[in-house]
């Protein structure tokens, strides 16, 4: 076992700089029906301190397994994971003191009140009775639990319980907070509310690593995103960077009776700034790798061809497009256990 005193001075590795989480070559397999199922096939990650990092992928891609390894619940078959500079395998107790974890299931004690949950959590992390009470009051205020914190958790709505569970995860002021699908099952208003709280925590210096299979959550909340599929990180970067790797589309609706569109499309396809152009019903869809230059080129061609235009719009790629390009599937279709088995 890892003795506290021996660990305390040695666990931080100076060379880690400002990485709150650093993962290299993480592998994990589980026994399955037809032999072992590889859940993680060499996951690499680096999460900068003080950021919100999104871990995006379909069900069964390996998000939760990665999180469980990082939170000391599960041990990896091979590979290295440092959380807050501490090796997860060698010093799990030291990691536990530095992290908070809100699992998909939540984990609030259903038969206790919200306040009792918070107070016990603080004490289990070694906080003093006074500090626990003060911090509990602070979080009841911060996450707006005041109206129901004295009630038994079993009677809470989904959104109320989620907020309590997030409060439980940050009770001891962790350096790194792990959230597994934090907004699963929440209505839009509660999601927006929780996003706001998470941004506030980030601003106060907490590093947040969250898994999600909601694209807008990854896009709007995270400063960087890793897309995981079949136990491997297939793309990593800021949402903007990832989207810029893929072409945008210019959608043109010509004026009725604008005349011959065939030659316009042929001309567009010849343009070096255009990747593809085709007619779809009454609209022309033009694929442009560089949206700015491409849009200008499209207008030039329209003017040269004398084609009157009713409407032009630019559709930039979404994270779903990124996912589709990287994995060959749409994120929305790629759920379920088949995602693990398809290799």
């Amino acid at each position, binding site marked *: 076992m890892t003795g506290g005193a021996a660990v305390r001075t040695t666990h931080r590795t100076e060379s880690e700089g400002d990485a709150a989480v650093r993962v290299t070559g993480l592998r994990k397999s589980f026994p399955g029906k037809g032999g072992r199922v590889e859940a993680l096939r060499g996951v690499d990650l680096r999460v900068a301190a003080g950021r919100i990092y999104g871990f995006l992928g379909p069900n069964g891609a390996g998000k939760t397994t990665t999180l469980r390894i990082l939170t000391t619940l599960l041990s990896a078959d091979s590979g290295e994971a440092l959380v807050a500079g501490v090796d997860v395998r060698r010093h799990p107790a030291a990691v536990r003191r530095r992290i908070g974890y809100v699992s998909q299931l939540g*984990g609030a004690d259903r*038969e206790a009140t919200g306040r*009792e949950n918070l107070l016990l959590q603080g004490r289990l992390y070694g906080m003093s009775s006074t500090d626990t009470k003060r911090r509990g009051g602070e979080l009841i205020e911060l996450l707006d639990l005041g109206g129901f914190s004295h009630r038994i958790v079993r009677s809470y709505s989904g959104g109320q319980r989620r907020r309590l569970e997030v409060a439980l995860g940050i009770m001891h002021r962790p350096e790194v907070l792990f959230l597994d699908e934090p907004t699963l099952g929440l209505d839009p208003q509660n999601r927006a509310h929780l996003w706001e709280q998470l941004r506030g925590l980030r601003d106060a210096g907490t590093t947040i690593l969250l898994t999600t299979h909601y694209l807008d959550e990854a896009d709007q909340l995270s400063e960087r995103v890793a897309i995981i599929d079949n136990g491997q990180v297939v793309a990593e970067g800021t949402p903007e960077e990832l989207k810029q790797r893929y072409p945008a589309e210019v959608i043109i609706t010509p004026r009725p009776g604008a005349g011959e569109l065939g030659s316009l499309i042929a001309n567009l396809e010849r343009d070096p700034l255009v990747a593809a152009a085709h007619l779809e019903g009454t609209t022309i869809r033009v694929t442009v790798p560089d949206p700015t230059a491409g849009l200008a080129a499209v207008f030039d061609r329209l003017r040269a061809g004398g084609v009157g235009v009713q409407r032009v719009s630019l559709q930039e790629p979404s994270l779903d497009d990124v996912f589709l390009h990287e994995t060959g599937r749409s994120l929305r279709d790629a759920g379920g256990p088949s995602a693990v088995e398809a290799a």
Partner: protein
Amino acid sequence: MSFLLQTALLSRRRLLETLRQPIWVFMGLSVPLLYLALFAPLLTSLAGGPGFPRGGVLDVFVPGILALMAFGAGMGAGWIVIAELDTGVIERLRVTPASRLALVLGTVVRDVITFAVPAVIVVCVALPFGFHAHWAGVALLVVLMALLTAACSAGSAALGITLKQIGSLAAVITGLQLPLTLLSGVLLPLSLGPGWLQGLGHANPMYYAVEAARQLAAGRLATGTVALGFGVTAAAALLAIWWSTRAYRRAMA
């Protein structure tokens, strides 16, 4: 120090949970009292016969009922553990730095208390009906049965974490319940039965606890049977607590 504090905090949480479900407190008490009221009278004609040396049937019957209570108070732990696997409570607690042993003992301490309080009440109720209490013996008897409760509680929790399904747990525990209780002679001493039945009893750890309990109730404290009863029950409790702690260390919903 922090280990003791954690155990105290986790036991308190469990006790609060029990107090909020007063129906269980009531049920825990009603079963032994019903046995005393509706089953013990059947035994009065056996007074003075084989297996009932001192004539007072309750002196033989009450220790067995206490063993049944200990079994019942402990074996419920697995159900709670499975509910907590399903709601993520165990994962949350496992991510805290709390001692895994404290996580196990929180439930064990609660179960011991929910055994001991009604046990004392049952002893008091039995007194006017002819239970001759030897006070030191009764005190040791409650301690012995508390050890049995601890063994059942930790064992049931470990089974719950391992099996993960309420259905499987219920099948295993009800499957164990009858052989364990019948082969320990909780209702009637096994010494009334044929040799093969007593032989089977010797393979049952609970048998030694019940045999020792009857001697303690009779005031025979310094016997080999009593020592053996304490030895076997304490070993079972330690083994179950070790198993449960190991299961908590690895628990996964």
